[in-house]
């Protein structure tokens, strides 16, 4: 089959990019979307042009590296799938496709379809972990976990951090990502003690990263390759409201600082 692609080309973070039109005449329907781009790139290299840069690693849908917009939908038209696992049989001969990088202030474009997602790493560093004192691993069944919580924690833990939720969200909010981490950890006994601290830290980090606010639209849920549900966001909201109510989740020094900063912020 034959495809027309309009791809965002941008040499570096500073340059202003633009859409460029390409014809791909010999697409095999068994190729994955990334393999189709590999074919285009070989063509471009043979012609002495710059190949299209895109992120990828495992190509098995488990690492979270790949991802861009196809006709305005993160990871393309197939639900619950990353672009590396999206096959060309889901497209029609002669179709025109627009490929664009994730768009969010927190995800600056580095080159073509590649964006910098370090903001996600900083969100995790802020609170998306549990503090463990090292030692020998505890016995597997020493801590009992209700089956339902276990399943829901697993569902949330399926998040691969690709950023599709932010890209698709009309508000460029990172709520589905944060909610997934908060639910994954908070549903398990090991993660519960740091619940308050975690949500307060992650929420304030997301404000600093200039992610938008969630308005419960649900486009993130629709494109998430791991089909993470909006319920994780409600859980984050609940944890945040609880931490606010009790005033917990902030260390003594931070308490001073947070209050001073936010007071200054609110005066501005």
């Amino acid at each position, binding site marked *: 089959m034959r495809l027309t692609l*309009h791809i*965002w080309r941008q040499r570096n973070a500073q340059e202003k990019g633009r*859409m460029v039109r390409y014809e791909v005449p010999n697409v095999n329907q068994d190729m994955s979307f990334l393999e189709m781009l590999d074919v285009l790139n070989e063509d471009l290299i043979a012609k002495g042009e710059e190949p299209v840069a895109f992120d990828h690693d495992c190509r098995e849908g488990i690492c979270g590296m790949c991802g861009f*917009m196809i*006709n*305005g*939908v993160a990871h393309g038209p197939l639900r619950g799938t990353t672009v590396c696992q999206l096959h060309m049989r889901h497209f029609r001969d002669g179709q025109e496709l*627009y490929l*664009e990088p994730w*768009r*969010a*202030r*927190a995800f600056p474009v580095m080159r073509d379809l590649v964006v910098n997602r370090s903001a996600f790493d900083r969100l995790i560093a802020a609170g998306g972990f549990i503090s463990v004192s090292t030692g020998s691993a505890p016995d597997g069944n020493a801590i009992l976990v209700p089956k339902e919580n276990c399943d*829901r924690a697993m569902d949330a833990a399926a998040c691969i951090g690709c950023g599709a939720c932010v890209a698709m969200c*009309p*508000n*460029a*909010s990172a709520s589905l990502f944060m909610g997934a981490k908060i639910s994954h950890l908070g549903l398990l006994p090991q993660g519960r003690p740091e619940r*308050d*601290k975690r949500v*307060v830290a992650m*929420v*304030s980090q997301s*404000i600093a990263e*200039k992610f*938008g*606010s*969630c*308005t*419960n*639209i*649900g*486009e993130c849920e*629709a494109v998430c390759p791991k089909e993470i549900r*909006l*319920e994780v*966001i*409600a*859980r*984050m*909201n*609940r*944890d*945040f*409201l609880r931490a*606010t109510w*009790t*005033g*917990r*989740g*902030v*260390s*003594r020094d931070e*308490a001073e600082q*947070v*209050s001073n900063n*936010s*007071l200054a*912020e*609110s005066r501005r």
Partner: protein
Amino acid sequence: MSSAAVAPLHRAVRFYAAPIGKKAVMAITGVILFGYVVGHLLGNLQIYAADHDQINRYAAFLHDPGRATLLWGVRALLLLSVVAHITASVQLWVLKREARPIGYVKKDDVPAAYAARTMLWSGPIIAAFIIFHILHLTAGSVLPLQEIAPNQPDVRANVISGFQHPAVALFYIVAMLLLCLHLYHGVWSMFQSMGVSHPRYTTGLKRFAAICAIAIAAGNISIPIAVMTGLLSN
């Protein structure tokens, strides 16, 4: 690390500084406005009572000078809610614009999210409607109002004569359709914003929101339609 409880004032500041806090304010003020809209609908439907004085007696009851403090207390609470609701929505809108300075050349939407995406349109139009509605039936600046006695408006006559103007009736109908859209998303959204969501009752909550939204719009819209078709007349 030792944890400290943050002082209440600072806690409130921290709360409102976060988008989640602003959404919670929208949800709580939304519940107040929703409760008012439900109560208002029940009041309005009395126009269908076989006893034509029913709705006027209800109006006189609300306007009873003995209860003026209560009336003005409720009005103040509603005004405060509207102001807080709109303030938070504007602040979130600013945040949204800052979060994606460069938009997409092509962007698709999830069709089911239509009501959610149009909250920022339905909201302001409903606000304009509220102002018009108060000028029309409370202040009497649009059409002259009739009174039976001081503090006893002839609500039945005023509503019927108002809706005999097609433009007025049409604006009420359009505003109620937008309110339906607003509540269709909003009533579910407030549960989500307050953290009430669980696989077991999410579908139920969404159905509840849809039923409330449709019932409120249908109930209110029936009145201008009844007047225009002549089912309700003086």
